[in-house]
């Protein structure tokens, strides 16, 4: 059961990787990378349950946090050209 769900995560991850490679604009790639991060969070949690060690959920929480921060930081850098530095 967990193995089937992990295989489904892998298939959709490969399909999203195709979109990351083919994506025309930056927004397509950023959106696809954010979605891939969500699927990786689900995959880490499922792998923890599959191998009988649910302590992997801590890593899943941290991955979700870094995924959100990274996406917003990349979009801000693409929007304004800086990450909020003090102008001299």
């Amino acid at each position: 059961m967990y193995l089937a769900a992990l295989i489904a995560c892998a298939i959709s991850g490969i399909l999203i990787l195709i979109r990351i490679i083919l994506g025309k604009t930056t927004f397509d790639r950023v959106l696809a990378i954010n979605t891939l991060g969500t699927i990786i969070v689900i995959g880490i949690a499922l792998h923890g349950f599959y191998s009988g060690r649910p302590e992997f959920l801590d890593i899943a929480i941290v991955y979700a946090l870094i995924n959100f921060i990274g996406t917003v930081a990349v979009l801000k850098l693409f929007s304004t050209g800086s990450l909020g530095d003090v102008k001299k």
Partner: protein
Amino acid sequence: MEFIKDIITGIFFFIGSMSIIIGACGLIKLPDVFSRIHAAGMIDTGGTAFFLLGMIVQSGWSLITVKLILIGIFIFFTSPVTSHVTANLARQKKIIPVGKKIGKLL
């Protein structure tokens, strides 16, 4: 009791797997940034919710359930924020949706 738990978890995992595979196919197939946000939102809500519900049913009452609910709440709050930021920035950078005239928009 374990058998009923396994059946409920299997149903939830099946719905979640279908949701993320359909969302990934839509992310490839749809023509535009603004319509691909729809597919990404389907993965973020449907897939995550059903997978986490299946794991909650499997784990019972423990600290693991609290962590799963924490992941669910966090993804439910951050997924619309990311979608909104992406769509707003794409609109500011003047990306034209498929099927719209240039003069009519913006």
